[in-house]
């Protein structure tokens, strides 16, 4: 090797290994735990990065049973803008793939999170050659062929590893002679890591970031206790810690094993867990308020939860977990906030056949806002540790391998053949395209984004891409017209206060907390322009002097009512002249009591726009905006057509769902208001 060549090699490697770029004295504010080039696009005031932290591919047993054949490699390609095939409505065993999906705007980051409990079984049944021990098991044959049907297969596969209350174990064929499911699971886990590495841009372009992850799928008696396990870098656990490894629903054991095998393994591993669908976590006698957020056993468990779970996935394809309101009953689950009648499922468990739960019986702490309030009330019992101090993200939970596919206008569903258009799609009327996770980070790299997730400088959206800033402090100029028109308002936001996800700074005597909030509407695309903003609200939760939790929703800027002319119902075109491209204000809490703990978060509301079901129904020639009678007449024609085509069984009437509206359904309407939720800012009296 020539000396000059060797010197070049050494120079290139040193740049990479030291990660210092042009300015060797620059040290970013986040820890660097991996080898990569520093990003050329770095902003100390941070940039919004849009991503998805909940994605299933053909490596998940349920997705595969639904004839989805897009693997993690393809999921990353989709996130970057490439099209992918999807199964047709009658697909079985992976055939036929009749549809194409593609997002209009790429994502900035992505974590593929397949169900870890069945990695070994999936490796044997779907990715190994014939002759592999276990390959000929009946369950394997069923998975590959899709017979008898996807629902039966998913239930058979899911029962022992996921659905039991009293433990968890592998599929029966795993204990047959010669079959080694745990060993085979490692192969799939390595593939997942390889996919993440192959698509992670480690160059200074920083165009796309991937995270290695999986889903911990604990679902005892259909009570959803799922978490997405997200790793900071390529140093991950040797094998996923699934519901099988914890021997059933035992979240503290999950954290304990993650601590032993990751945080304290000495490998540079770091990890967090993101719970989702608390709206479907049900309740038990031991956890009557809700099973996702039970009272911790002790301070240590409270601290462990707070450490491992800085974020909650508050919105996704199976509904919103922010809060719950039944507009037909005229009441909510510990709320009077009518905007909580948004994307609510009728039941409180992850079972499509689950019972409809009346609002008065709904487990209150299954809703995140109530959990946040309860967390403040519980903190004194745990030495001041608030066990439910969650920041917010959204995600999709796609089971198509199509991350970020959250646009209402052309949503193809999220579950393979089971919701292929249009009849089967509208049959799942309560489901939705899901949301997005947005992170404020200095650059698009793993360390920067993961650090932002840890400090909760994140917000979630219901699928659109508004830009939202939220700061809290005591010194902001309350004249919004002044501060909102300052060029350096974001710098001021950081200098005089804290961003979303933080605790307020120490109290300033005689001053109330003030909050600077600003939002830009989603710019949209040429094909699907964005929807103007309607208003920004601030939601305050606190614990009063009697120890009771309270909440208040305040409209702080914009229109606090629907105007009525936001949408052309004939073609779903959004009126660009109603609403706001931008909103900004400074709000002061004049009712602030420094003795009482509180949180504040911003909810940014867009103007009404057509729901995905309205687009699907209109495509099937059923108009949800007609009177109920006229709508049902059209639905009858569409139902018969779907039966005649063999898409749905005789006697079923999925298109009747198109006729849901404010007068006959608790939450579904032809129009929705997309929204974003910032992570809260907390006031902790002990912080002074």
């Amino acid at each position: 090797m020539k000396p000059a060549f060797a010197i070049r090699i050494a120079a290139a490697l040193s740049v990479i290994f030291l990660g210092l770029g042009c300015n060797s004295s620059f040290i970013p504010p986040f820890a660097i735990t991996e080898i990569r080039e520093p990003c050329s696009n770095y902003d100390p005031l941070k940039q919004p990065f849009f991503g998805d932290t909940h994605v299933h591919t053909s490596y998940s047993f349920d997705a595969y049973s639904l004839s989805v054949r897009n693997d993690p490699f393809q999921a990353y390609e989709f996130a970057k803008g490439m099209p992918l095939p999807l199964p047709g409505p009658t697909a079985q065993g992976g055939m036929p793939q009749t549809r194409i999906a593609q997002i209009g705007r790429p994502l900035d980051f992505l974590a593929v999170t397949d169900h870890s409990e069945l990695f070994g079984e999936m490796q044997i049944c779907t990715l190994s050659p014939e002759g592999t021990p276990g390959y000929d098991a009946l369950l394997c044959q069923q998975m590959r062929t899709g017979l008898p049907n996807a629902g039966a297969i998913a239930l058979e596969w899911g029962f022992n590893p996921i659905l039991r209350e009293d433990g968890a174990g592998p599929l029966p064929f795993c204990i047959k002679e010669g079959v080694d499911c745990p060993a085979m699971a490692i192969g799939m886990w390595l593939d997942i890591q390889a996919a993440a590495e192959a698509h992670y841009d480690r160059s200074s372009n920083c165009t796309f970031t991937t995270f290695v992850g999986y889903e911990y799928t604990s679902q005892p008696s259909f009570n959803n206790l799922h978490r997405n396990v997200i790793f900071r870098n390529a140093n991950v656990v040797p094998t996923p810690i699934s519901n099988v490894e914890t021997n059933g629903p035992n979240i503290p054991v999950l954290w304990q094993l993650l601590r032993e095998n990751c945080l304290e393994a000495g490998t540079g591993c770091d990890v967090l867990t993101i719970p989702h669908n608390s709206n479907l976590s049900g309740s038990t006698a031991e956890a009557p308020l809700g099973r996702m957020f039970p009272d911790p056993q002790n301070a240590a468990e409270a601290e462990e939860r707070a450490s491992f779970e800085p974020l909650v996935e508050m919105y996704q394809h199976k509904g919103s977990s922010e809060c719950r309101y039944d507009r037909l009953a005229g009441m909510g689950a510990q709320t009077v906030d009518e905007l909580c009648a948004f994307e609510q499922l009728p039941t409180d468990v992850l079972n499509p056949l689950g019972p409809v739960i009346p609002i008065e019986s709904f487990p209150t702490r299954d809703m995140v806002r109530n959990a946040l309030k309860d967390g403040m009330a519980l903190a004194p019992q745990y030495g001041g540790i608030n066990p439910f101090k969650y920041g917010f993200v959204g995600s999709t939970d796609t089971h198509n391998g199509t991350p970020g596919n959250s646009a209402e206008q052309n949503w193809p569903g999220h579950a393979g053949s089971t919701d292929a258009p249009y009849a089967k799609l509208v049959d799942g009327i309560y489901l939705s395209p899901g949301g997005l996770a947005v992170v404020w980070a200095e650059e698009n790299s793993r360390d920067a984004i993961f650090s932002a997730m840890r400090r909760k400088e994140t917000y979630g959206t219901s699928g659109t891409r508004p830009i939202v800033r939220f700061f809290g402090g005591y010194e902001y100029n309350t004249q919004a017209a002044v501060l909102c028109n300052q060029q350096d308002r974001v710098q001021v936001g950081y200098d005089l206060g804290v961003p979303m996800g933080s605790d307020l700074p120490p109290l300033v005597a005689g001053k109330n907390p003030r909050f600077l909030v600003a939002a830009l509407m989603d710019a949209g695309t040429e094909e699907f322009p964005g929807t103007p903003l309607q208003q920004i609200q601030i939601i305050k939760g606190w614990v009063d002097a009697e120890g009771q939790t309270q909440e208040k929703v305040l409209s702080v800027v914009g229109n606090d009512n629907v105007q009525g002319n936001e949408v052309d119902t004939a073609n779903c075109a959004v009126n660009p002249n109603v609403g706001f491209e931008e909103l900004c204000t400074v709000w002061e809490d004049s009712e602030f009591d420094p003795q009482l703990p509180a949180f504040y978060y911003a909810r940014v509301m867009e103007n009404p726009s057509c729901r995905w079901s309205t687009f699907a129904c209109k495509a099937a020639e059923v108009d949800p905006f007609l009177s109920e009678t006229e709508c049902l007449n059209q639905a009858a024609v569409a139902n018969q057509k779907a039966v005649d085509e063999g898409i749905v069984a005789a006697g079923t009437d999925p298109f009747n769902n198109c006729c849901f509206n404010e007068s006959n359904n608790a939450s579904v309407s032809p129009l929705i208001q997309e929204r974003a939720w910032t992570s809260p800012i907390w006031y902790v009296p002990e912080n002074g």
Partner: protein
Amino acid sequence: MFQRMAEKSKIKAFLTSPLVHFFLLGSLIFLLQQGPLGAWLGRKSDGLGYEIHLSQARINEAKREFLNQWGRQPDSGEVQEIANQVVEEEILFRQAKRYRLDQNHPGIRRRLIQLGEYLGEASQGDPGKYIQNARTLGLDQSDPVIRRQMVTAMKELAGQMPLQGEKPIGEADLKKYLSEHPDHFHQGMRLDFIHLFIRGKESAARGRLDLLAKKISRDSLSPEAAVQMGDPFLNGREFSQIDSMGVQKFFGSGFFEQVEGLPEGRWSLPIASSYGWHLVYVKKRYPERPLELARVWNQIFLAVARDRQQQRLQSRMALWKGEYSISVEGGGG
């Protein structure tokens, strides 16, 4: 004379000593093993054989695996490829056995222990005996998990062994790779720009922007001073090395197309975005360009190294195939 006779006796004794005979015989065998005869001797003696017969049943099995994976029948070209893969995997497995890659492989060892545990109680917890029992029954040859691990290990080894006459990767190799893959190392146009923003899309906003544009020109304001007169833009007022995707993200669709052609050092005419009106001042343009070698050195080095590993494996596979007698039932269809 007597000394000469004594020396001849010594030489004769040396040459007729059994030790010397053993040494010479051993040397002869060693030398023979290095040549073609040695290869023949080796082949005859390792028990793995050099004949591979691909049955129609095996081909049909592979076709079924393809159907299960891809949801359709393979075409004729794919069938040929499938048959080739089956043959190559068998070769890799046998070569791995010849290189004794299974001897200290932790995964294979664990698997053999597991297999041996099922075979009987006599071994009573002795891992060594479990392994021995499994090998005795030929499970080290037939178990699919072990076979897969052996094939993978042999591929890795073959990729790491330099070929005869192979030179280390040099700058010329990297330049050649870059010239052959220009699309992979290519950067789209990027801009450094600052912008003055007026919120709102109504005519009043446009009018306000026009007035500011005139003031900027009249007062010869610097770009940094000029933007202070506009409204704050939540996504920032100055951008560095931003590409088309970044501009679309912060300004909406169509904006990049309006700014990409702007000259450096001058204010644009008013440009509309999803949020209002803008005057854009491009400070620097980075044209679309292929990336220079120094910039992507590491990426290309890794790519060339990967290619070289693949070439080594392919070359070795070609050599090995030449040593095997391969037959496919029915021609492989």
